[in-house]
């Protein structure tokens, strides 16, 4: 059950995160018009899900979480069938089905019956049917479900390629934070059917790149002032530990230059790693992270 969802998602690749039962699949099903909302509405590409459900579905490619194939049908016929249902004329559907199969790396097995495919191949065939008709929005529900590490890597690579091609937007539902971290630039975290956080991962990554944690030997007030003179914000803790927020104009080598001048040894330097896991855990605990807080 979804309740009180209010927000705008504009990312090119949006990750949908949340624990089991948080409403990820329900949200996807609602956007696809499978569930009618009891109250409120949603808009996809400016189309209302209540009034333009078919138009939305025509613009969407959907890869469901669980098995979705016709065992006795060859892969190529299955993808062609789905492309025709999405509106492609038979000839174009056939051509696009071949293309999609080669694109996902199943070109050699496209005439085999789907029932004989391995789990990884079935996942890729599901992806092929979702992209064959060239949708504007690709919805992937747990795309790496049950895949071995190699197959997972292949799937993630494909998703990234599709994202980088820029022809379609992606909505990726997953409980694997790593998958979302590697493919998405925006994340919506759900908890108990409500929005726990909306986070612009790109913004988060950018801000993390500016945030430096250092361990030094010999750093003193003078070093701190020299760093601040560069335009950085600086906080000094005990045992030579420092946190520095760098402005865009300052590079890391400037810090090394200052340290060399003052005879300070920089023993460790890390970018802040406020990972997606931190963002997720904070959201689950009800805390909002920086970027997430701004949007809520």
């Amino acid at each position, binding site marked *: 059950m979804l309740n009180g969802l209010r927000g705008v998602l504009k990312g090119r690749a949006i990750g949908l995160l949340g624990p089991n039962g948080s409403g990820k699949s329900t949200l996807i099903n609602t956007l696809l018009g*499978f569930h009618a909302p009891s109250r409120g509405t949603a808009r996809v590409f400016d189309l209302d899900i209540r009034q333009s459900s078919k138009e939305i579905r025509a613009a969407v490619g959907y890869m469901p979480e*669980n*098995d979705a194939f*016709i065992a006795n049908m060859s892969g190529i016929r299955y993808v062609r069938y789905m492309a025709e*249902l999405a*509106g492609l004329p038979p000839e174009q559907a056939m051509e*696009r089905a071949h293309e999609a199969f*080669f694109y996902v790396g199943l070109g050699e097995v496209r005439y085999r019956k789907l029932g004989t495919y391995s789990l990884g191949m079935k996942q890729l065939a599901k992806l092929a049917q979702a992209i064959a*008709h*060239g949708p504007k929005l690709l919805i992937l529900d747990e795309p790496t479900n049950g895949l071995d590490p190699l197959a997972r890597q292949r799937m993630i690579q494909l998703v990234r390629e599709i994202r980088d091609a820029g022809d379609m937007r992606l909505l990726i539902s997953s409980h694997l934070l790593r998958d979302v971290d590697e493919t998405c630039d925006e994340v919506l975290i759900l908890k108990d059917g409500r929005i726990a956080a909306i986070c612009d991962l790109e913004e988060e990554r950018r801000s993390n790149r500016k945030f430096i944690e250092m361990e030094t030997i010999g750093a003193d007030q003078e070093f701190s002032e020299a760093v601040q003179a560069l335009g950085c914000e600086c906080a000094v803790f005990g045992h030579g530990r420092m946190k520095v927020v760098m402005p865009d104009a300052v590079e890391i080598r400037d810090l090394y230059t200052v340290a060399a001048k003052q005879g300070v040894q920089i023993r460790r330097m890390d970018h802040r790693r406020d990972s997606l896991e931190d963002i997720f855990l904070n959201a689950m605990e009800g805390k909002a992270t920086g970027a997430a807080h701004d949007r809520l």
Partner: protein
Amino acid sequence: MTVYKRNYRSYSGPVTPMRWRWLVITRHSLAEVFGSRVSVVLFVICMVPALLSAVVIYVANSETARLLLNMRGPAMTIIDNRFFFRLLELQGWLALFLTAWIGPAMVSPDLTNGALPLFLSRPISRAEYVAGKLLVLGMVLSAVTWAPLLLLFGIQAQLAQGWLWPNLYIVPGLIAGGLLWIAVLALLALAVSAWVRWRIVATGLIVALVFIPAGFGAVVSGVLRTPWGLVLNLPYMLTLVWSHLLRTPIGWRREPLPLSAAWIALIAVGALCLIMLNKRILARQVVRG
């Protein structure tokens, strides 16, 4: 560029009208039906009585043919409403067995491995999905029931001068009677296909659902000494309606039921099948366990 060298690209070509897109389901399912040799053989067998009837009609109208066959005197077979009624009954039974074979493969393969949400994530509604599948059965069963009978009617009208106008009422009777039986069979087959995964079991069940309630109804009628047990006898209900449509007397040992009872029974069967379909034709995946 060859297909295997192409990268992903968006599609900007023509698209088919959304209103008629459900016919894609019909086309692919029809190809699936006739992709099976057993289905083709059964279909051909269903045509045999109609072909033989064409010969009978020709012989009945041709003195030369009768002489060649050493049949003296007037034609032994009278081509009238009773002839078409008997033929409709025969084709109806054959249609039942054809449905029992092709019907189970209609919905079940889409449900077994969760392909249904893919259909319904396209601009296809649940009703359109069912309509697409019904149309497949409608087309195949029409080809073995009322359509060949209509052709035979045309042949008879062509061969017998002055026969057409007094017997014209047979045409709507054949079409309506045939379509009614097709609707009942198709809905029954889809409902069974949606609920039973194994083809052989589903095939048996379709036949059983016609005969077992009829047997039970006969027991009820016998024990309670009432004709109302016949309500469970689907073929009898159809016979009642066909008799009315083709203006033939009802050849039944007991006192016949009112026509309205037959209509109510048939509508109830159809509604029950639709309820069963409504429970199973769902867009979302339901994962148990």
